[in-house]
């Protein structure tokens, strides 16, 4: 029977293939191991340093406890979290309806909008701060001397990343047809956006939001130069008086951002697998976001 022939013919090609596969697997494991070490060693060192008790040579959670008990650090954590939330809300309110509207009604301005949104990438944060210093003075005059005016600047900072994430989400669905279908069924424009388009952008929205949070929690330049006490500024200050507490706060912020990305990955993966199951195929969900980074400058 032909099965026998098949066995023989595949048998001839199997061992070199298997060897190549084994080499590939080894290569992958080595690369993964090296990259893992590159990331993990500093993190583990931070954990080790922040929990080391120099008096008893044992372990202590004192530095971590200070994240909550130290008023300077605790206050800065709250400030940064509120700033992150404000930035996300402002960014979504500003960008989501604008991008949907441009796609549906004025596609000819899509390019200028993209250029505008990506522009902050090309301008160093230092230049932005210097340029916006007077604007911030006006904001202080209007809203009082509150660190939360930084949210308006952070919206500009996160625009490129959020734009990319949302643009990828909008490109993955047929916005025009869905909108026209909803319109023909009696939906006004607000209903089209809120009940038809946005529910199909969940992954892109989460992606844009998490990237924005990560960026805001890691932002130092704006806050420092404008003399506001955010988490990164507090870490920097604290590092001069209590290095352990400063390292604990750094590690906490890194872990928090990493946790957000894991959540995003799980949510995206879950939705992708569900869609793949529904359509009977494997669907890769691309969030369209760049690799997140925690700018410390």
């Amino acid at each position: 029977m032909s099965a026998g022939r098949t066995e023989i013919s595949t048998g001839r090609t199997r061992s070199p293939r298997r060897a190549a596969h084994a080499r590939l697997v080894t290569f992958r494991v080595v690369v993964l191991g090296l990259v893992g070490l590159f990331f993990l060693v500093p993190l583990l060192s931070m954990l080790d340093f922040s929990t080391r008790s120099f008096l008893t040579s044992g372990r202590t959670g004192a530095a971590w406890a200070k994240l909550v008990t130290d008023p300077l650090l605790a206050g800065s954590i709250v400030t940064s979290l509120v700033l992150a939330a404000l930035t996300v809300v402002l960014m979504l309110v500003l960008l989501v309806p604008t991008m949907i509207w441009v796609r549906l009604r004025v596609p000819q301005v899509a390019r200028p909008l993209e250029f505008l949104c990506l522009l902050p990438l090309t301008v160093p944060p230092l230049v932005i701060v210097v340029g916006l210093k007077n604007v911030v003075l006006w904001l202080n005059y209007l809203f009082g001397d509150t660190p939360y005016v930084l949210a308006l600047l952070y919206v500009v900072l996160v625009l490129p990343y959020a734009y990319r994430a949302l643009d990828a989400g909008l490109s993955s669905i047929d916005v025009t047809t869905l909108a026209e279908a909803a319109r023909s069924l009696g939906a006004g424009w607000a209903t089209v956006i809120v009940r038809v388009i946005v529910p199909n952008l969940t992954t892109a929205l989460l992606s844009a939001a998490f990237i924005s949070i990560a960026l805001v929690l890691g932002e130092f330049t704006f806050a420092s130069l404008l003399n506001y006490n955010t988490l990164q500024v507090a870490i920097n200050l604290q590092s001069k008086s209590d290095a352990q507490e400063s390292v604990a706060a750094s590690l906490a912020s890194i872990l928090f951002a990493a946790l957000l990305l894991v959540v995003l990955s799980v949510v995206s993966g879950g939705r992708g697998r569900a869609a793949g199951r529904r359509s009977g195929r494997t669907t890769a969900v691309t969030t369209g976001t760049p690799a997140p980074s925690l700018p410390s400058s």
Partner: protein
Amino acid sequence: MTTQTSSSPRTTGGGGVEVRFEAVERYFGSTRALDGLDLTLRPGELVALLGPSGCGKTTALRILAGLDEPTKGRVLVDDRDVTAVPANSRDMGMVFQAYSLFPHLTAQANVEFGLRLRKVDRARRAARARDMLDLVGLAHQADRYATELSGGQQQRVALARALAIEPSVLLLDEPLSALDAKVRTQLRDEIRRVQLEVGTTTLFVTHDQEEALAMADRVGVMSDGRLQQLDTPQELYAHPRNAFVADFVGLMNRVPTTVTDGRAVVLGVGVGTVDGSVAAGAGTALVRPEQLLVRPDDSGSAEVMFVQFSGAISRVRVRTADGSELVAQIMGSALGGLTVGARCSLGLDAERLLVTAS
């Protein structure tokens, strides 16, 4: 607005409305997509707009849906001018060429969407959606999401969704073009059955003449933004008004001839000419394959080039003495003697033909 869900939920607003396009023009920049379209859809009828890409048929449908605005002219529904009425207030159900089910909703929720906007209470909404899904044969798939349905099923749900709101007009924008041939034929018949059952005035846009002829009460053939002819499928096929319609609908042979006093001699047979033909002089007679007679004849001037046996009806391609090729459609049982390379004589089974200028 509140939709009335009657005790017999398979009926629509009331036997259909009259739709009228009056001298509708649409320009995109300097490009003229519609050139003075005048078209009336009678209450309850299904009119198909047929034409090649760019002929303006989809533009006409989108203008009726309110998704596009005419540059000039009016659109009336039961004598009410709806030209300036926004799409979401027009009360028209639409099925799109692209799959348009909302991906985040189940089939049931998709069908309920329009009813929810009309604030129909939950129980009636659910009952109406179930009825509509049942109407298109998908009641058992109500909990499925769009990605869990095949293309044909998605278009069925889209049809149910469009009908659920009891639209005054149903608009079908090439809903079958993304489907494979078998599903297309099934769904074509199903759409027609549903349309007859609910009695909604329907405008159907397609570039597939078979679909148009099979489904529509009347077919409008469009070209260059103009309605070339609006007629029943039978009339359109039998009496095309001009060369474009004749060419676009069905196969057509072109036979050189000369018109004298309203008569032409085509393949040696004298025939009358229909309105729209050239008055006198040289022209081209348009002959349907089934109007062409082919007989085995050793002394005939034509030669059989190709025989396509397809059961009851077969096609024969012949080359005439002047080198032109003609296609004849004959009964499969009459193929005897007509083999490739055989000589044959040609005849004509027509009393009047359209003769266009050469």
